[in-house]
């Protein structure tokens, strides 16, 4: 539901990009991209990771110059050399990763770089309070940013661009960090600002949201425009196929391989914030059996990351127990848990999975430095590590010139395949896979799904966290929904649809028989 009344079709379009091409060494990021954004509309730009959306926006925002092509703003051709030029033309960018200084106040963050507009004192403060109303920000400008929640920080980012006189606002993946209620608030804000004549360019790969808020959608794939669509008539699946360009690989599994043997038993897991005010994990009970894939669905920021890290021993729970087969892991460290038979595919392979400057065979040892084939007692077995790395490279189709290259030289998909191969090689009884195909090309994704299915058939228990609902539905035997640190619903993968799951994830409750609520969700609870 989007308001089409504010879209003015007789005015010149707010932004027109024609034939934009941008090359980097070794890569063509954008190739002949066309984009037209009408005045007063919310125009969504969709594409997979790596499709070229960010580069395009950097060009529109003046952080990069295009190699070919033109930019028109309000009917006039412009050339941006720096972000300041774009700001002067009325274009403002709200980054996905907020560019805020925690130790400075809201006011200081807003006026930074634009001190000449209204100074840095009382005059600026007044102007900020004036503009705050538009964005729904209800905070004194003298408050330190570090005290603000995520949604408020986003409002400060929007405030920054309004302060500088932006009329066209680019929102880069704005809902990635918001909980459902905050997403609704953001959409209300956007619609309200639309009525006042602002234009929005909304970048996202969350297709349900795109269809909810956008007036028109442009899909970009592999650096070039694929086409436009009308959000009112197109379906998420059709959009997804435009983004990927072929029949989506379907991870559907057929027969059940679930046994009765309980592998992972989590009881009453509780984790509080450092100041003890809110629970990050609120009394979580979870059972994963041998041969079973348990998928956890939930909007990012509801505790999934913390759940995984607590099970792995990287965080210490306040209370509760974790048992692996019959071994009590609760008091053990990460290394002992790994040795007990847990494999872990982390959601951020660069921070938690790999040593980027070290060769592939050196990375094979990480997590396995006390076990064969990579070590013998206190000694490293470099030959064993190298041999096993060769095996992983061939079995998991890791494209690399050799095992001596640093991990940073591999592409994301190949890095992930290496990690998956390593984590499956210790004969684990439990595999924790956190967003295992994030940022990974389609081919690697298919291979990783195959490997997980194969291990599952051999009796592996899998705990799967994913934001990709198709992946969850296709791979899981059981799906649980996580909201605000609690498991609130179970879903049946054989009958549930992404829409059902989506509404359960956003706290709207069950809308179909396929989703069974297991906990009461109260509104506004925090």
């Amino acid at each position, binding site marked *: 539901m989007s308001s089409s009344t504010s879209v003015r079709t007789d005015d010149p379009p707010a932004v027109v990009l024609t034939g934009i091409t941008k090359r980097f060494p070794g890569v063509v990021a954008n190739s002949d991209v066309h984009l037209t954004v009408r005045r007063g509309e919310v125009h969504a730009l969709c594409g997979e*990771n790596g499709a070229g959306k960010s580069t395009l926006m950097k060009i529109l925002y003046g952080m990069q110059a295009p190699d070919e092509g033109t930019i028109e703003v309000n009917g006039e051709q412009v050339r941006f050399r720096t972000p300041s030029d774009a700001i002067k033309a009325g274009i403002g960018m709200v980054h996905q990763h907020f560019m805020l200084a925690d130790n400075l106040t809201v006011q200081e963050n807003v006026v930074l770089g634009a001190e000449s507009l209204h100074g840095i004192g009382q005059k600026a403060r007044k102007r900020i309070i004036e503009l705050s109303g538009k964005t729904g920000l209800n905070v004194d400008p003298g408050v330190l940013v570090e005290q603000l929640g995520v949604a408020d920080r986003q409002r400060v980012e929007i405030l920054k661009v309004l302060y500088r006189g932006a009329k066209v606002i680019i929102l880069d993946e704005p809902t990635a960090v918001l909980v459902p209620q905050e997403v609704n608030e953001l959409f209300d804000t956007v619609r309200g600002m639309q009525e006042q004549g602002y234009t929005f360019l909304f970048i996202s790969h969350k297709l349900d949201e795109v269809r909810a808020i956008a007036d028109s959608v442009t899909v970009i794939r592999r650096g070039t425009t694929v086409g436009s669509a009308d959000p009112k008539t197109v379906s998420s699946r059709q959009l997804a196929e435009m983004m990927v360009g072929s029949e989506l690989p379907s991870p559907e599994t057929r027969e059940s391989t679930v046994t009765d043997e309980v592998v992972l038993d989590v009881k009453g897991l509780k984790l509080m914030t450092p100041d003890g005010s809110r629970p990050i994990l609120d009394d979580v009970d979870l059972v994963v059996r041998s041969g079973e894939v348990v998928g956890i669905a939930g909007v990012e920021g509801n505790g999934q990351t913390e759940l995984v890290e607590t099970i792995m021993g990287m965080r210490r729970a306040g209370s509760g127990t974790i048992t692996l087969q019959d071994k009590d892991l609760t008091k053990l460290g990460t290394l002992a848990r790994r040795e007990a038979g847990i494999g872990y595919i982390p959601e951020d392979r660069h921070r938690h999975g790999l040593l980027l400057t070290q060769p592939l065979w050196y990375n094979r040892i990480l997590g396995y430095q006390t076990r064969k084939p990579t070590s013998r007692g206190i000694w490293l077995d470099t030959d064993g590590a190298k041999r096993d790395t060769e095996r992983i490279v061939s079995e998991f189709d890791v494209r690399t010139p050799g095992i001596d290259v640093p991990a940073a030289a591999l592409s994301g998909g190949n890095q992930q395949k290496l990690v998956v191969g390593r984590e499956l090689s210790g004969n684990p009884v439990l595999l924790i896979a956190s967003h295992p195909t994030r940022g990974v090309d389609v081919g690697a994704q298919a291979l990783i799904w195959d490997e997980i299915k194969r291990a599952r058939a051999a009796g592996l228990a899998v705990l799967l966290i994913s934001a990709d609902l198709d992946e969850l539905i296709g791979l899981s035997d059981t799906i649980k929904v996580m909201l605000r640190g609690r498991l609130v619903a179970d879903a049946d993968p054989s009958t549930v649809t992404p829409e059902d799951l989506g509404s359960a994830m956003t706290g709207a409750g069950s809308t179909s028989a396929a989703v069974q609520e297991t906990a009461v969700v109260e509104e506004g609870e925090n």
Partner: protein
Amino acid sequence: MGNLRGKLLPPALAIVFSMLLCGVALVISGANPLRAFGVMVTQVGKGSTLVDIINSTGIYYIAALAVAIGFQMNLFNIGVEGQYRVAAVVAAVVGGSIALPPGIHTLVIIIVGALAGAAWAAIPAILKVTRGVNEVISTIMMNGLAIGFSAYLIRRDVFGELRGNNIRTPEIPESGWMPGISFGGSGTMFGFLFVAIALGVGYWIMMNRTRFGFELRASGESSTAASAGGVNAKKMVLVSMLLSGAIAGLIGLPEMLGRDHTFSLNFTAGIGFSGIAIALLGRNHPGGIAFGALLWAFLDKSGLALDNVGVPREIVTIMQGSIVLSVVVAYEVVRRVELAAEQRRVGRELGTVGGAA
């Protein structure tokens, strides 16, 4: 191989640059740089200079190893300076007060030295792990306290005694000495040199072939990835600081066990800072550190001859300081050049279309 070039080029560039810089400084002050360098080179063949250089190399090598262990973990153990001082005075006091069969006596002194050095490093280590105190400042403070502590211990009413004009600890009996290799008029080479070599080999083996070395290097590169891989970050910090301190504790022993047999006010200071410089020059690699230690020792000992040509021997200190600064700059410059070349190569190999930002 490009890799070798990346490793050898920066130190070479740094040395050349520093020589030029010092040459310029010499010219400005009215001296002849070529003559100065010439004197230094020929000095090597005279008197005991060569043996002195070798002995010094051993000492600097140990110091740099101690620092390098910390560096592998991104820890800046500036406290090596204080750790070796405390270790030397404690080892001298203990060594001079006990009587044991030869060999065992020496061994006990060495062990005491290592333990004392580790103990002096333990305080900053514990403060860092429990209270988050930055180890740079805490170790620098400990260095100051080490001077006071050692001065206190050699007071006449504590453990010291007066010999002529010099206050020192009781002399270590011969059973506690470390035998050396005598070259007659050319000096005596410390037997501790072999210990230094053994330490270097041990360091290499530990870093590259043991599980502990793996965990150390992984922690230093990415504490988050290491922690996901089961490495206990706090334990690593503690152990590496203690190990660094223990090795630092051995720095004063070559001179003490091979020549002086006591701790006195003539104690050689400043080796800790040289160790930092050499570890940087050698990039924490045992072979590179050996070369750096040799260079440093050469500059030190040959520099003594500069007085004969009227050049202040502090020019050596300037050279050493500028080598440190220029070597890190050179490493960075070479790294950037190589990275750009590598990116171009990968781009060419992969072709055109691919995923970008």
